[in-house]
């Protein structure tokens, strides 16, 4: 079911894309009258899936476009039936979590077929994990879209809620609004200038979590950082969004840009040397490791955003996704071991960059 190439939303141009790769909002919801997922029996999990699938009609067509004419709706994917490689594709596209890709219990995901910007995980840590992804900074829009999906679902289903604690979730760190707003940032300037620790400290003081490329529990790779709110109780959805997107995020974006400018002003030769060394490796290497390619593409992205290299930014974005193990194997149409993947990865990078005229 997963479309070829990469998610359409990733190809779109987004505001502040030089620093903000993507925006994401997610809501944690549980159905009233059922135990939370980890306490639910297999038959209860099946029932939850059935109930949720019953209300999916009418969702998805309007996501990201504001128009139902775009069609599509959502497509249901039974993760117990889906082969491992396809599950890997969904993880790499951030449509499901790593945790959700594993296990044998009844679980699934609904994905908007038009552009893959909406996903609804069923039976992850909570009965429902609804998320909307957008390119660049677009959290206002994403929150509006997710609100529509949430309204549609809760107009038909009783959702676990208490007047004191709000929306009830399996883990109390999500209780209240159940809302997590996050942005994937590319911060090479702050990392290279040694300022990234200041960002971490400032984020901690503002109750903002700093995570790696795949969110919770993942390492930072290629200077990509996922920042998100931690407080979900005692603040309204608009306040959560406001303090994150209205206050914190613009400051970090400006901080990163100023770090990039000052590096180019004071150490242009060093920056250019690093960027072109990365490009040299990417255009000539015969074997590339997964983490290595992310680091090199990070330098390339840095070079493109600062005007050191002239090439379209979306080519770098696509390579970040397509060089990951599942996408690479899908593209080659075969299962590959690690050594084979390294060769194919290097081959794909050389070909793509050559086609882009680099």
């Amino acid at each position, binding site marked *: 079911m997963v479309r070829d190439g990469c998610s359409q939303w990733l190809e779109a141009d987004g505001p502040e894309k030089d620093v903000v790769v993507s925006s994401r909002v997610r809501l944690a919801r*549980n*159905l*009233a*009258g*059922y*135990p*939370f997922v*980890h*306490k639910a029996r297999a038959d209860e999990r099946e*029932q939850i899936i059935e*109930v949720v699938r*019953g*209300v999916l009609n009418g969702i998805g067509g309007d996501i990201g476009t504001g128009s139902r004419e775009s069609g599509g709706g959502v497509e249901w994917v039974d993760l117990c039936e889906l082969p491992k490689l396809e599950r890997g594709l969904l993880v790499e596209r951030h449509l499901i979590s790593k945790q959700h890709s594993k296990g044998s219990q009844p679980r699934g995901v609904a994905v908007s077929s038009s552009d893959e910007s909406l996903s609804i995980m069923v039976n992850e*840590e909570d009965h429902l994990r609804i998320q909307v992804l957008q390119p660049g900074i677009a959290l206002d829009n994403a929150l509006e879209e997710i609100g529509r999906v*949430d*309204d549609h679902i*809760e*107009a*038909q*289903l*009783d*959702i*676990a*809620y*208490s*007047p*004191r*604690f*709000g*929306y*009830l979730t*399996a*883990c*109390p*760190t999500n*209780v*209240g*609004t159940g*809302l997590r707003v996050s942005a994937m940032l590319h911060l090479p300037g702050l990392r290279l200038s040694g300022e990234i620790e200041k960002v971490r400290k400032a984020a901690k003081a503002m*109750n903002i979590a700093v995570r790696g490329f795949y969110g919770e529990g993942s390492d930072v790779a290629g200077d990509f950082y996922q920042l998100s709110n*931690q*407080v*979900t*109780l*005692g*603040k*309204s*959805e608009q*306040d959560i969004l406001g303090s994150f997107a209205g206050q914190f995020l613009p400051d970090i974006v400006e901080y990163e840009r100023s770090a990039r400018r000052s590096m180019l002003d004071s150490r242009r030769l060093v920056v250019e040397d690093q960027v072109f060394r990365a490009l040299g490796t990417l255009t000539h290497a015969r074997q590339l490791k997964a983490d290595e390619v992310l680091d090199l593409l990070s330098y390339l992205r840095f070079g493109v955003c600062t005007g050191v290299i002239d090439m379209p930014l979306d080519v770098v974005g696509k390579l970040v996704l397509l060089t990951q193990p599942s996408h690479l194997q899908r593209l080659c149409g075969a299962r590959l071991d690690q050594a084979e993947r390294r060769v194919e990865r290097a081959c794909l990078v050389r070909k793509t960059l050559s086609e882009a005229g680099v």
Partner: protein
Amino acid sequence: MKRKCDFCDSEAVVHEITLAGGKKIEKHLCEMHAMEEGFEAEGGGASGFLTSKIVLAAGQKQPAGKPGKREGCSDCGTTFDEFRKTGLLGCSNCYEAFEEQLGPLLQRAHDGATHHVGKIPSRAGSSVDRQQRLTALRRQLSDAVEAEQYERAATLRDEIITTEQDAGLRRGTAASEGEV
């Protein structure tokens, strides 16, 4: 030196210190005697006792409806110790069952907040009522089946189905569901 069980020579794996009326009562139990005394093994199996733990109990009787540390949520059986270990509550009712213990924890996690502010589901009021009603009905049904009161069980089952339909949790009619 490892402490021995109060009842035999085996090593004690559960240590309970109870404070009642200013008096300290200690219990040190091996795996077998801990199970006999009604301690729950974490993770459900006997091996759950392999890690020693110290239980500090208040000694007073818990207020009605509020489970103690070893006593579980009345709906799903999750204990507070289990929650501490996994970080996950078992069901909606756990929030009510462990309200007192969760309070300070939520404040720490949510920058001092104690109450929800923000969106309220459109069906909130009736949803909470239905949630409680479903829980009660399901408990009555299981009691009725155990007591072999099949007529009563059939009536309860129909009530559950109707309530589930109202909650959007079920489609179709009670009559089409077949016999208990």
